[in-house]
């Protein structure tokens, strides 16, 4: 067919010539409609890119003249649009025509309007400022009585629409959900889906209407509503569990062939619908046995029905397998799904094989034996000519790595790295290799570890993430548990680097050289045969090399400086100083002068660069107290006292009051231009790293299959005659790759685990541990607080605690944090009787509770009850998290026995139970309290926590009671205290902004009272009020800032939000509106 096309293309010019005179009476029209043809023909006839550029530039000039000429009719404009679209597709800029596309959509008849809308959808993106001009047209067309016009308007809205203008069309689109034509209803649902994606808060109130769409009698409308449900369930599955039954019923009907035949695709009923439903069920049934049980039947039927040998049935099967492995497991289904995976893996079709590998990678954590069953296929795939198959196989192997097969797997990964050219893949693989090497501690010995890292650095030193070399160096420096082992490792590294540097004509990436120079500088002293001078000689050679970057040279120089005090003769060092003190590179010259100075005072140098002290904490006198005398002298001689930068800035500001307004007005202009801030194409690398690190080790229980060796011996017996040499090699490889997966392998692994793991486990040096603890202090505040209180109680220390409670510092610093900081070093401090410590009274619990109550908290609210007990809860808005307290009280006052409260895990939150009894209410035997701290993991719009309580009253049997409580994002909003100057800086750096005007009744006092409302109800921090403008800031936990700028005109308050998070401003503006209109 392609040949025919080519022939036709060459014959084109002739054809066009014939075509043109036939235009006859319709000559003007013909000349226009064939203009595109002429353009295409012209381009095809050209031979060089340069000629094409010239032709199109000419065409664009003509078009520019035509579209702006007043005589151009809409009809001609339509033709121009088509050609403009064509030019843009070829990569030329036709932005001058954008405004005309909007005009065409506005003014044209149906036919022209259609092209106008198409051009708009192709030219503009949803943040384009011109799009605002389209809103009126859309509103008009939505109200049209002509169905085609309504359809066009809905189509454009579903593709691009300015977020801030949604309220203008929302009611119209909601009306369309009741339209008699299904095509209109369907498009309206998709338009709402689009709104949900760009501004979820705006469509919060119409969830009930989505449900109606789900029950629509038309299949298309129902299918369209599933897009919304899939998205909503992904964000919060617990809120839609009640719909499971409906989804199951729909899927049953689809699978059973109850839909109109129109929806069949190659005689498979509605495959797209099936897949959508399967994905939804997978999300709903995850970690939820009861919901999963509802869907077992229909999944079984889906697996059974999909037997036709067509691609689309495989698509359904794949989704089905995915769902079966996502939900609460059922062994029968798993077995069937495993068989299906086998079908994929063994298929001769390469696409199916790829998906088989993908499925294996997904299920391998639950069922490692599956990999054993397919080991020979996996081996074959390792050498597959298609790199994508290889890549997926490596991904799979990565997940089954253990201490015994790590050498082979890393070897395979390195081989792949040598061949691959794609940066993205290389970076990912590096991370995998490094994880295998270090974090999982599988490395078999020193030599292997260093050599692998050498290979990794020399292949991809320049593309890898800078964290990788840093982590490697930290690992070397901090070492593992065994000190002599560490020295061996370091010595081996030093020796291997020296060998590498001695190689002639070898070239290494800069990062690798940096790693080498650090290691050589730190650990050359371990060398016995070679002297520091020899090492310096090599470094000197590198420093003289022109191809080495100045950054690397700085590293090299640092190494030389470290080695100098150890060297006995200093000829070379002196030469180095001589050469670099006249270097043109200022940085190098600086280093050279430092070295020169230090070299003259070798004792000072030795104390500055002690041997092997890279892990020691450095003590720096940050207050510069040794300068006090100097300062005092200066002051006494009449010098002005020093003012810190911010203070100077503030003074300057107050002097030039009003300047700030100019600044803000210029900010606004910038804000408008800055449409393409942070929404560009950013690969989500960080989350990937997280995933890989988290990849859990393979569970070693439940291995039902016989172990590897037995499989192989069996095969050997049966195939010993037919087996070719090649196959033997493959089996050898297989046995080295899959070792440790079988049952015997498990024993081996356990036996060996001790020797291996302790060798490579990271040593917890005091400093390291402390650092980690301080960073995690936020999350452990409460628990450490209670433990501290116990300690102090026992020791019966006296009470300065209550005084401290009243002291001013506490209002600034969160009390709990302070306490926990102390508790880290508590034992030693107690021993020293250091005065930094608190001395709480014996009734610690009560006063700690008083401490907690410093935070704002909600009122006690009953969440559920029955005849015997009542559960109430309240929220405490702590600085770093939300603390939920549930209080269970028995109504009769009798003792609650073995009350136990559990909270279901929720998607957007990290929930941790807090022990201790920090409550303002008095504990009685009849009341039990449970505390959970809730950390936000992901912004959400609607969330709830649900759980149940198990309890037993005096002599009854145990009773279970379920409850749930709503959380709002507001629970995670905290004031952000920053200066006006910081506000200005931050403001410029944020790309997401939202503006809103709110009417108020009073005019003069509006601003202060409005700000007060915001401060009280939304916990925003008021930074400054300047005339009729107010600046506020808040943060969403853990630390996403959002800024608000308010301005009052007569009786309207203009709110302008900016944040680094795209959904936060939207949400806050909605909340502000609610609060201010309510007040």
């Amino acid at each position: 067919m392609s040949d025919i096309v080519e022939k036709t293309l060459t014959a084109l010019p002739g054809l066009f010539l014939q075509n043109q005179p036939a235009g006859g009476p319709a000559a003007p029209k013909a000349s226009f409609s064939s203009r595109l043809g002429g353009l295409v023909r012209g381009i095809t006839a050209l031979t060089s890119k340069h000629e094409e550029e010239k032709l199109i530039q000419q065409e664009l000039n003509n078009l520019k003249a035509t579209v702006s000429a007043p005589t151009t009719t809409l009809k001609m404009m339509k033709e121009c649009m088509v050609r403009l679209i064509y030019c843009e597709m070829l990569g030329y800029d036709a932005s001058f025509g954008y405004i005309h596309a909007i005009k065409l959509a506005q003014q044209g008849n149906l036919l022209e309007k259609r092209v106008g809308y198409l051009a708009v959808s192709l030219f503009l993106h949803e943040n384009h400022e011109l799009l605002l001009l389209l809103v009126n047209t859309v509103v008009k067309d939505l109200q049209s009585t002509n169905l085609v016009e309504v359809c066009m308007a809905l189509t454009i809205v579903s593709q691009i629409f300015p977020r801030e203008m949604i309220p203008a069309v929302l009611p119209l689109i909601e009306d369309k959900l009741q339209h008699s034509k299904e095509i209109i209803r369907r498009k309206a649902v998709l338009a709402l889906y689009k709104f949900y994606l760009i501004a979820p808060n705006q469509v919060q109130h119409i969830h009930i209407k989505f449900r109606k769409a789900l029950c629509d009698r038309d299949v298309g409308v129902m299918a369209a509503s599933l897009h919304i449900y899939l998205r909503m369930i992904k964000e919060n599955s617990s809120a839609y569990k009640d719909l499971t039954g409906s989804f199951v019923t729909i899927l049953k009907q689809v699978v059973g062939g109850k839909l109109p035949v129109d929806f069949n695709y190659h005689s498979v009923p509605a495959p797209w619908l099936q897949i959508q439903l399967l994905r939804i069920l997978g999300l709903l049934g995850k970690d939820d046995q009861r919901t999963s049980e509802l869907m077992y039947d229909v999944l079984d039927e889906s697996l059974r029905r999909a037997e036709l040998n067509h691609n689309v049935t495989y698509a359904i099967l794949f989704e089905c397998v995915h769902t079966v492995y996502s939900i609460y497991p059922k062994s029968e289904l798993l077995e069937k799904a495993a068989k299906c995976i086998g079908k994929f893996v063994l298929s001769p079709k390469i696409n199916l094989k790829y998906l088989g590998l993908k499925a294996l990678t997904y299920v391998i954590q639950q069922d490692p034996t599956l990999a054993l069953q397919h080991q020979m296929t996996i081996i074959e795939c390792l050498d597959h000519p298609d790199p994508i198959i290889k890549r997926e196989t490596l991904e799979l192997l990565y997940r089954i790595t253990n201490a015994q097969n790590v050498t082979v797997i890393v070897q395979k990964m390195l081989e792949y790295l040598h061949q691959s050219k794609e940066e993205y893949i290389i970076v990912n693989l590096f991370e995998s290799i490094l994880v295998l090497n270090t974090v999982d501690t599988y490395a078999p010995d020193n030599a292997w570890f260093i050599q692998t890292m050498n290979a990794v650095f020399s292949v991809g030193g320049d593309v890898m993430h800078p964290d990788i070399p840093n982590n490697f160096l930290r690992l070397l420096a901090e070492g593992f548990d065994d000190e002599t082992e560490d020295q061996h490792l370091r010595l081996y590294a030093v020796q291997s680097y020296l060998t590498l540097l001695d190689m002639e004509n070898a070239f290494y990436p800069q990062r690798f050289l940096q790693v080498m120079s650090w290691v050589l500088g730190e650990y050359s002293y371990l060398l016995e045969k070679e002297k520091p001078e020899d090492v310096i000689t090599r470094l000197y050679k590198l420093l003289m090399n022109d191809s080495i970057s100045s950054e690397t040279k700085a590293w090299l120089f640092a190494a030389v400086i470290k080695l100098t005090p150890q060297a006995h003769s200093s000829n070379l060092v002196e030469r180095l100083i001589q050469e670099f003190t006249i270097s043109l590179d200022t940085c190098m010259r600086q280093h050279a002068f430092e070295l020169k100075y230090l070299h003259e005072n070798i004792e000072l140098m030795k104390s500055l660069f002690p041997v092997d002290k890279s892990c020691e904490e450095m003590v720096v006198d940050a207050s510069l107290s040794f300068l006090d005398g100097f300062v005092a002298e200066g002051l006494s001689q009449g010098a002005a006292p020093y003012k810190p930068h911010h203070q100077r800035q503030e003074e300057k500001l107050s002097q030039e009051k009003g300047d700030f307004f100019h600044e803000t007005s210029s900010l606004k202009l910038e804000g408008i231009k800055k449409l393409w801030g942070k929404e560009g194409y950013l690969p989500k690398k960080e989350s990937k790293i997280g995933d890989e690190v988290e990849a859990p080790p393979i569970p070693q229980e439940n291995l039902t299959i016989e172990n590897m060796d037995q499989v192989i011996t069996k095969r050997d017996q049966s195939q010993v005659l037919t087996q070719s040499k090649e196959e033997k090699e493959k089996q050898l490889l297989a046995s080295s790759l899959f070792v440790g997966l079988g049952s015997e392998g498990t024993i081996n692994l356990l036996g060996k685990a001790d020797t291996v793991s302790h060798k490579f486990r990271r040593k917890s040096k005091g400093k390291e541990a402390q650092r980690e603890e301080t960073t995690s202090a936020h999350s452990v505040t409460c628990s450490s607080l209670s433990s501290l209180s116990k300690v102090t109680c026992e020791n019966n220390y006296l009470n300065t605690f209550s005084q401290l409670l009243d002291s001013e510092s506490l209002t600034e610093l969160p009390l709990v944090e302070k306490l926990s900081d102390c508790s880290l070093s508590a034992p030693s401090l107690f021993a020293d009787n250091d005065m930094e410590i608190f001395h709480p009274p014996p009734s610690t619990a009560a006063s700690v509770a008083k401490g907690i109550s410093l935070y704002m908290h909600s009122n006690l609210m009953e969440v559920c009850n029955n005849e015997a007990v009542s559960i109430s809860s309240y929220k405490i808005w702590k600085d770093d998290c939300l603390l939920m307290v549930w209080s269970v009280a028995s109504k009769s006052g009798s003792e609650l026995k073995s009350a136990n409260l559990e909270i279901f895990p929720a998607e957007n939150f990290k929930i941790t139970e807090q022990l201790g009894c920090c409550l303002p209410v008095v504990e009685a035997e009849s009341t039990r309290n449970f505390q959970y701290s809730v950390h936000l993991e992901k912004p959400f719009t609607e969330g709830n926590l649900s759980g149940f309580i198990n309890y037993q009253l005096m002599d009854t049997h145990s009773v279970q009671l379920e409850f749930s409580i709503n959380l709002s994002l507001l629970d995670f909003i905290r004031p952000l205290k920053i200066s006006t100057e910081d506000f200005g800086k931050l403001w410029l750096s944020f790309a997401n902004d939202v503006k809103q005007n709110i009417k108020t009744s009073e005019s003069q006092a509006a601003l202060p009272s409005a700000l007060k409302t915001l401060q009280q109800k939304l916990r925003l921090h008021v930074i400054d009020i300047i005339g009729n403008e107010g600046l506020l800031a808040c943060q969403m936990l853990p630390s996403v800032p959002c800024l608000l700028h308010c301005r009052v005109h007569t009786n309207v308050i203009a709110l302008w939000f900016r944040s680094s998070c795209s959904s936060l401003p939207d949400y806050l503006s909605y909340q502000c509106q609610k609060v201010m209109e309510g007040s």
Partner: protein
Amino acid sequence: MQFMLLFSRQGKLRLQKWYVPLSDKEKKKITRELVQTVLARKPKMCSFLEWRDLKIVYKRYASLYFCCAIEDQDNELITLEIIHRYVELLDKYFGSVCELDIIFNFEKAYFILDEFLLGGEVQETSKKNVLKAIEQADLLQEKTETMYHSKSFIGCKKAY
């Protein structure tokens, strides 16, 4: 779906539809890189590609490559069927479609695509319904057309 590209064996772009907001520069860069990568692949190779953090699903029909970008958790096989269904729709509309139909009537190809996929999601899977929607719009179009001119614009394609 993040975007869909149609390009010829010579690497000429024939149709592009972006469902995510990207700058023109970024779009051009992606197109250039992808066209190069896909054209370099051998015929018997897998129809899927990992590219940046996206999955690329492509298929060649005669001289035209159809290429879709999806997210990692999306189903690759059903995306291949989306491509196939689109080709079927084009085929039915144009009557055994060839690359030329798409070059000279690319706006029609866009209209059909918009009735099938909307905002990156499958809008209507029934072939009959999609074509009905297109025909309705075309019918109105033809009526207005005949009001102004005697010769139908749609007839143009038949001339070559």
